[in-house]
């Protein structure tokens, strides 16, 4: 019993060592390829591109991952986190209800579910952005909350190209989880408007730049959903006024800090008729 536990921890120690060592080795490789780029003539252009690729997709993410695991605490602070551990888009919506009810409400409000990130969908979003073709189900990058990737992601394309779009990600809260302040919600969501394709400030990766005023997008999402029957809205004023800053790509974000709570429990699901009585908004803070 003790032997098994010991081997388990040595394996994880080794993993940690290789994780950091690989990061250091990658810095050295980036340095070597940069110095080579000035010495080998025309092939240096290729090496310079290789240098950027190394830096943006391997070295900087690994460094951020190591550093953020040291200095970004892993509790809820109203912000999502990127796959590198950087603070991502702000959490600016909350939802009461079941997954099917959210799916129905979003579909009724004209939102389209995003494809999961994969080889095919990634290639397609690149080509359709470059050719300015429409890709209404374009994937959204993973953001993390409660240590998990988003459970649902929705978007609305603007001007027929994935370069600009409304998008929102949803995470189911752990059982019995309370918002700071004590309100109980079932889901949290982060909605931002992708305004252009650019380079991330922190990792130099190609990514979407978001509109700084995240309140416009939040209010757009809420407005689109209030048109759906069975959806009610309650607002926590000044929920996150302390969290103005930058998102994971280095874009500035500002917000008035209000957190709308969308109550979709009034939406009926045909095959689950038993949960028909929606609680009143006053019950939202009390245990159910």
């Amino acid at each position: 019993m003790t032997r098994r536990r010991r081997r388990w921890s040595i394996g994880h120690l080794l993993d940690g060592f290789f994780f950091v060592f690989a990061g250091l080795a990658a810095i050295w490789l980036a340095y070597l390829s940069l110095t080579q780029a000035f010495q080998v003539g025309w092939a240096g252009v290729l090496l310079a591109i290789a240098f950027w690729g190394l830096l943006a997709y391997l070295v900087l993410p690994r460094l951020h991952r190591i550093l953020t695991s040291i200095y970004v605490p892993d509790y809820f602070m109203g912000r999502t986190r990127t796959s590198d551990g950087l603070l991502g888009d702000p959490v600016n919506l909350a939802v009461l209800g079941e997954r099917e009810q959210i799916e129905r409400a979003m579909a009724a409000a004209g939102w389209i579910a995003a494809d999961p990130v994969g080889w095919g969908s990634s290639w397609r979003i690149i080509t359709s952005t470059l050719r300015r073709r429409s890709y209404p189900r374009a994937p959204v990058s993973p953001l993390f909350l409660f240590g998990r990737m988003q459970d649902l992601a929705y978007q609305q394309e603007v001007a027929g190209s994935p370069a600009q779009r409304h998008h929102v990600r949803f995470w189911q809260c752990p059982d019995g989880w309370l918002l700071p302040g004590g309100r109980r919600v079932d889901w949290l969501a982060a909605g931002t408007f992708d305004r252009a394709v650019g380079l991330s400030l922190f990792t130099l990766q190609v990514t979407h730049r978001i509109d700084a005023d995240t309140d416009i997008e939040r209010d757009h999402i809420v407005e689109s959903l209030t048109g759906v029957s069975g959806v009610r809205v309650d607002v926590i004023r000044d929920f996150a006024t302390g969290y103005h800053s930058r998102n994971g790509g280095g874009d500035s974000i500002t917000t008035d800090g209000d957190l709308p709570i969308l109550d979709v429990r009034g939406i009926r699901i045909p095959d689950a008729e038993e949960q028909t009585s929606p609680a009143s908004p006053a019950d939202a803070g009390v245990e159910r």
Partner: protein
Amino acid sequence: MSVSRAPRKRAAFEPLAPPTERNPRMRRPAATVAGGVLVLLRALSGAVWGAAVLFGLPPWLRAIAGFANGDNTIPAEETLDDLGLPPEVFVGVLGVVFLVQVVFGILLLWGSNAARIIVMIVSTISIVTAFVSWWQVGAEITVATTLVTLALDILVLLALSSRDAAAFARRNEKRD
């Protein structure tokens, strides 16, 4: 706040859980594919190097190598005489190394954790050796010498040490 309600409540912070949960049915992540494919590429590059030493490079390939060096000089060829080995030993050693690398590449793609750890240890030793000879001895690491091999080693290590690859290789482990 009454005491009777307290057990049903939870503190409003995230649990300090590992970011990736063990999931036996998780799909093979890109990092694992990259690691396995890079090890296979390394096997292939060794085989090509061996063939070049045995049979000599075709002239057009040497011309490209010279162009990549920027001075259009045709680099000198290595031959078996430079290594001072009988051909049987050379082919034998190279063949064994090639086979071992291919087996490990396939094991990595299957998601073997032992293969992952062993490949990471070997890459680490190889990188440390290269670094010491570069830092202490001043050995040049250029495209013409060992930069490509070193780059493959480092990329393999980066891919296999990533959280995704670790989670995939440990997907069947029981949680303690």
